[in-house]
């Protein structure tokens, strides 16, 4: 079964049940993502892939990685509203991610594309920069693909952190699958190849993360 929808003015035919993000990519339309990974279940937490959709005359904002295509749906992947969401999210994430005031990788690219002022909230950011945007790719990859469950989330709200569980992290020294996933480069640069050192649940509980 396929459905017909419109993405950025382009008529697109997509398999029923796939997400807007998948349909857009098949049609050659790029939508930026930070927490999405093709091998993982959609997490829908970075919200960078937000798009505007109109179904049955109703307009709303959804995340394209989690929302399925529908017959007759009209999708806009860029609009003043969407651009503002992406710009402000990058600005809000920048202070915790930047190293010496500079963003790297995907974040840097997005900041340039959406005209984000990465220093906008810098002076107001008083927590310790964690260099982690909590996209959870490492956590989910370890759970869903590797099956080791060596990384998880601790805490909630502004105290949420991704941490290694030392007793589960025996395989990490050889695995290191998460090293290449990390969009900010935190894991490879901070773990020094001994993955749970300084980055573990004990460090979290000691208030050091």
């Amino acid at each position: 079964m396929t459905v017909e929808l419109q993405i950025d003015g382009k008529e697109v035919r997509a398999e029923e049940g796939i997400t807007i993000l998948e349909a857009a990519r098949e049609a050659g339309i790029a939508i930026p993502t930070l927490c999405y990974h093709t091998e993982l279940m959609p997490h829908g937490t970075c919200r960078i892939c937000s798009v505007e959709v109109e179904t049955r005359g109703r307009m709303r904002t959804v995340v394209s990685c989690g929302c399925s295509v529908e017959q007759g749906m009209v999708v806009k992947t860029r609009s003043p509203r969407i651009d503002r969401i992406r710009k402000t999210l990058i600005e809000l994430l920048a202070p915790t991610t930047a190293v010496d005031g500079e963003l790297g990788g995907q974040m840097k690219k997005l900041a340039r594309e959406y005209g984000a002022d990465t220093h906008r909230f810098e002076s107001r950011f008083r927590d310790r920069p964690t260099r982690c945007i909590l996209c959870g790719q490492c956590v989910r990859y370890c759970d869903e693909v590797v099956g080791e469950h060596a990384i998880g989330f601790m805490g909630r709200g502004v105290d949420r952190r991704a941490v290694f569980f030392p007793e589960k992290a025996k395989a990490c020294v050889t695995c290191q699958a998460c090293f290449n996933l990390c969009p900010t480069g935190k894991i490879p640069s901070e773990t020094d190849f001994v993955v749970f050192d300084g980055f573990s649940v004990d460090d979290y509980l000691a208030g050091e993360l």
Partner: protein
Amino acid sequence: MASKRISSAKELEQLGRDIASKADPDKRIVSICTMSVCGQSRGSGAIAERFAEEIRRAGLEEKAEVRQTGCQGFCEREPVVIIFPEGFYYVNVEPDDVPEIVSATLSKGELVERLLYTDPTTGERAAKESDIPFYSHQMPIVFGDNRRINPREIDDYIGLGGYGALSKALFQMSPEQVLDEVKKSNLRGRGGGGFPTGRKWETTRNASGETKYVLVNCDEGDPGAYMDRSIMEGNPHSVLEGLLIGAYAIGSHEGFIYVRDEYPLAYDNTIQAVKQAEEYGLIGENILGSGFDFRVSVHRGAGAFVSGESTALMNAIEGRVGEPRMKYIRTAVSGLKGMPTCLNNVETWANVPLIINRGSEWFNSIGTEGSKGTKIFSLVGKVNNTGLVEVPMGMTLRQLVYDIGGGIPQGNKLKAVQTGGPSGGVIPEQYLDTPIDFDELTKLGSMMGSGGMVVMDEDTCMVDTARYFISFCCEESCGQCSPCREGLRMLREILNDICEGKGQEGDIEAIEDIAEVMQDASLCALGGTAANPALTTLKYFRDEYEAHIREQRCPAQACQALTCYYIDPALCTACLICRRNCPTEAIYGEKGIVHWIDQEKCIKCDTCFQVCPPRFSAVRRISGEPLPEPPAPGTRVTREEKG
């Protein structure tokens, strides 16, 4: 022990009659709210014990008994003792008052005048609950039975006709008819969103899936709100009965009651209620011989505000972390364990038996066009009569605050009413004649919410209010999605700065910018609404923000960093009261010598301001203007102390 099982509608009816006829009409019932944790903390347990002891001592066991009940509503005057059948109402009772009540009221039916409620404005005493303005304007259809039943005794509930609605639904109505009745009642979800309950039921009923679940959300967590706790503690069977009726209409045979961990008594009473209902065969297989099966488990929450969000609650019941998940498919279609699931709030379920018993037409006769029935509010903050109140929809906020709440303490002026908790907003004084109605409150930028209502007077700073709710959400957000987590973090920092006089030009625009992105892009409703307290205070009190940022002035003189205390030498009579009460010994002066405050030592605790006798009013709060020079040491008092 013989089986207690009730196996038909007739037997249930007979049991109800037996319980009612066994009750001695001449026997007085002493109703005390020991089954509410707040009543307990105010000493209701000791009073109940003393009553039992004094009744025994007076040999009145045949003439009077103590009934331990849930919350009775008038928390301001706790502990309260109500004596039935007369309905005599005693307030602020202490254990030592008990012998007098026993010898006068229980033995002779006489009133103990001094324990009656006295109206602070008219000075009149009220003998009965119905004579007290706090109660006379209420319509306690859901909450009213609390004072008459011991929640640990299912017979108390059945004696008042309890489970009659279930029996009616099972034997006189088809599931479709029950659903139709609830739809026609126009009942809307009491948890905050106000979604039509019947429509939710219908979607769940029509969704495909072998197994369907019904859930009770008792994860109430708004600051200052305790309606659901008080129903769950005080009348758990009303919720169970509603749940059973809903399950029958939806075609569900399994339910869960999610009770937050911080509600230990509600949890215990729910467990007890389920156990007793099971013993009677009201839960289990072939309920009342109808062929309908239903079982229910009580799930103890794990202490997070966000777990009250529907998908988070379902995650928690499944054994996962109580965090929301994306719900582009409604939970009514794919909820708990991927099955169609109907989640309703405690108060919503408790309304169901009433609708089945008395019909949708009756229910529609109460309330406004768009909001039917009653709503329970926890009326708290700067209001004379704090407590739980149940009022018909459509009553105005003014009636609620003044007629029921008795107005603002110390004759202060009302500034705003906060409704809807951290997801809601403030409603300023000029909108006080707005009727209580889901849609009307939303139009003002606030929301009905689950029923928290915090009254604020002129001494409340609106920026500080926003800061409080934003800080609350900073800790209570799950932290998964970036707009909510990072947006709240930055809002908190900006609001902290503004309250400390470190606000900057552009801050207001930044707040609006962040708030908009949180509304548009957050994963769940917590993030989507968390900025509302900031947005509504900005909408109605923008000038307060501007005063903080541009003039370093807090108009309410509440933000400590922007407020100083000063003793006016022309008004000070050197009475020493402020000096004696100052916790940091920051006040100098002696008899006949005007007092002054050492600003270095002052911690701005407001004590001097509060203790300075109103007839002097010599202590002033100063914000946004230079502090006058203190008087020269040894300046003598110029003001004469009058009588």
